[in-house]
């Protein structure tokens, strides 16, 4: 793992070194991400400063092509998704005493019925100075990888993260320890984590193996000219996944009514022999990524924002199509990228568009009657977002997503897009 991180770190440092002369003005040194929104209420008791705050995102799903008024034949859960729901309702408390900081954040939502749980819990030791910050933390922490994973939910212009971000990091918080340093415009973060973030499809907030994931990002964040803000970075993750073993099974006698006469015949009885237990196994996984974001202001119009992120990975999908190279017999390589732009039109409205691409298995293939042919299993999504309230945190958002995928079957048996476009209206408030 170490050479991996070190190489990336060196590349980042060289990149930043080359661009340093162009930086007209460094941004104030701040740890990433911002520890608490500005709107949080603060109270000082003795040497302790308490901050209380939160945010609410309430959604109305106006259209979802995949919605049906049925129950899932496999799990029995409702398939209708055209509904009102609370996507996120967060409440947090932060306490600061000298160099120590503690924070607890709860999330309540109705995505899969009523659920209340821990969203963040961190204990940190650090010092903030005008141009030099450092902090080490322990607990349920934000994963230091890339751009989208580290964005605070209300700050994201689009409703949700891109497909590759949600697939590789189904949750943005994981249990572990993290160190982060900022010096002038340089940002460096490194964490050792369980590797099973909140939202993991298999073992959320657990750790079925002793091996830990090592995650880091090296980047820069600066205001290079009047009202032009740039941030960029390279990230890496190296970790160990878990393939669950199976318990022993007993011999089973099975009757298959092959001639469908409803009568048991000796030739229709089969013995399925029991099988010994199989052990669980670990497998290695990794991801590397690069991200960039530019924000600037157009006079008389408003703020603008451009961003992009690209990620390569292997065996790291933990959310969309969980990768298990032990079951599939080969490594599953992932690749994806996202680009987006948004423009304010005065402080009342903003328009944004985003395109994201994610291929959960670059080497996928399928069997036709006579040939084994490559198969494109990628997800492609166009997102169009209209925000009433500009880039502000308190706003009303209307978003249409046009999804392309390979989950359906066309009339000739070839893969086709399974209709799943969505139109969602969200109200959001930070308090």
């Amino acid at each position: 793992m170490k050479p991996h991180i070190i190489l990336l770190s060196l590349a980042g440092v060289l990149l930043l070194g080359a661009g340093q002369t162009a930086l007209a003005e460094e941004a104030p040194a701040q740890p990433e991400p911002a520890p608490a929104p500005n709107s949080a209420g603060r109270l000082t008791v003795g040497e302790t400063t308490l901050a209380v705050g939160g945010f609410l995102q309430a959604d109305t799903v106006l259209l979802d092509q995949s919605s049906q008024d049925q129950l899932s034949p496999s799990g029995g859960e409702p398939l209708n998704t055209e509904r009102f729901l609370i996507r996120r309702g967060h409440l947090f408390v932060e306490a600061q005493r000298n160099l120590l900081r503690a924070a607890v954040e709860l999330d309540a939502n109705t995505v899969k019925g009523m659920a209340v749980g821990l969203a963040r819990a961190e204990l940190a030791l650090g010092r903030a100075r005008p141009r030099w910050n450092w902090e080490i933390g322990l607990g349920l922490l934000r994963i230091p990888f890339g751009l989208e994973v580290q964005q605070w939910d209300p700050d994201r212009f689009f409703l949700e993260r891109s497909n590759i971000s949600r697939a590789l990091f189904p949750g943005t918080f994981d249990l572990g320890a993290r160190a982060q340093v900022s010096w002038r415009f340089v940002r460096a973060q490194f964490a050792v984590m369980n590797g099973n973030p909140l939202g993991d499809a298999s073992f959320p907030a657990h750790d079925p193996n002793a091996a830990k994931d090592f995650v880091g990002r090296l980047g820069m964040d600066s205001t290079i000219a009047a009202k032009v803000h740039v941030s960029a970075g390279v990230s890496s993750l190296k970790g160990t996944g878990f393939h669950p073993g199976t318990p022993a099974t007993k011999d089973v006698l099975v009757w298959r009514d092959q001639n469908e006469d409803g009568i048991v015949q000796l030739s229709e009885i089969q013995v399925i022999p029991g099988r010994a237990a199989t052990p669980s196994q670990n497998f290695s996984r990794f991801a590397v990524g690069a991200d960039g974001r530019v924000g600037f202001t157009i006079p008389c119009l408003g703020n603008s924002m451009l961003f992009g992120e690209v990620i390569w990975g292997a065996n790291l999908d933990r959310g969309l199509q969980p990768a298990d190279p032990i079951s599939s017999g080969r490594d599953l390589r992932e690749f994806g990228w996202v680009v987006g732009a948004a423009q304010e039109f005065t402080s009342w409205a903003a328009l944004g568009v985003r395109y994201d691409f994610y291929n959960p298995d670059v080497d996928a293939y399928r069997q036709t009657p006579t040939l084994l042919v490559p198969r494109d299993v990628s997800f492609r999504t166009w997102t169009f977002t209209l925000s009433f309230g500009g880039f502000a945190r308190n706003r009303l958002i209307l978003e249409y997503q046009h999804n392309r995928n390979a989950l359906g079957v066309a009339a000739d048996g070839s893969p086709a897009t399974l209709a799943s476009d969505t139109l969602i209206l969200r109200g959001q408030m930070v308090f």
Partner: protein
Amino acid sequence: MGCRPDIWLLFLSLAIATCSGEAPCDTGLEALVRVAGGQFYRGSIDKLASSDVPAVVDVLNSQDVITPGLQNKQISGRLDPGSTAVVIGFAGDVGYWILAAGVPDADSPTQPTFHASLSFSPSLPQTSYDLIVRAVAPPNSFGPAAHVALDVAPILLPTGALVVSLWWDTEADLDLHVVDAYGVEIWAGNINSFDPYAATPTTDAGVWSQGGILDFDSNSGCVIDGRCNENVVWSVVAPAGDYVVRVDTFSLCGNSAARWTVEALLNGVSLGRAEGEALPSSQRFSKGKGGGLEALSFTVPPQ
């Protein structure tokens, strides 16, 4: 139901003009026949544009008689070379199913195959159906239809002098308990009321069949068999006297409720019928002998 024909969708699809060629999200549960692993499309299979090729070479089907709710009926066959998929459905049904073609058999290496596992709607009307199978070749060339005639047979209730039946509507584990005129309880733990020690000594080997016999412990231990029906049957003659029928909610198996019906038929004539609903609270009553809640009582007259 299928993809919602919302006005929003229409508007936005027109605006973006990229929605063609999409497969619908539809479980196809409203169709009379369903194909495991198939992609469901709405529309009539017999109205698809037809061409001469590719054709279905043959269809293997074991039985022409099906029952409502039947699962995992297997059909298979071979297709003309160049076929990539097969379309399966009932003529006149609300939709049809697309299934990708499989690799050829060793004895006919140029002909793709198909293997389909069919299930049928529990509300399948009792009549004859025309199952249509059509081969497909790119781009969307539907070959001529191969027809398989299927007759729907009713699910026959057991016959006997006295039949006490319990049936219910969800995949729960309910148990039928019947206490006969002698006070003997027939249930999953005692499936026959005949007592060899109390009976008159005889050399008749079939004397055991004179008792009331429970035919099946449906969904036992939440191993779902789909029958949701249990019967206690006296095949020859039932003892005269008073009977009590109880329904035990052993487990709802994760369902929120189960609506049940109990009926007693003496030589085909109803002696009584009761309906009720098993709720989660019903699961807490005692199990085994003496378990369940009384649902029906009736008297069998001397015969």
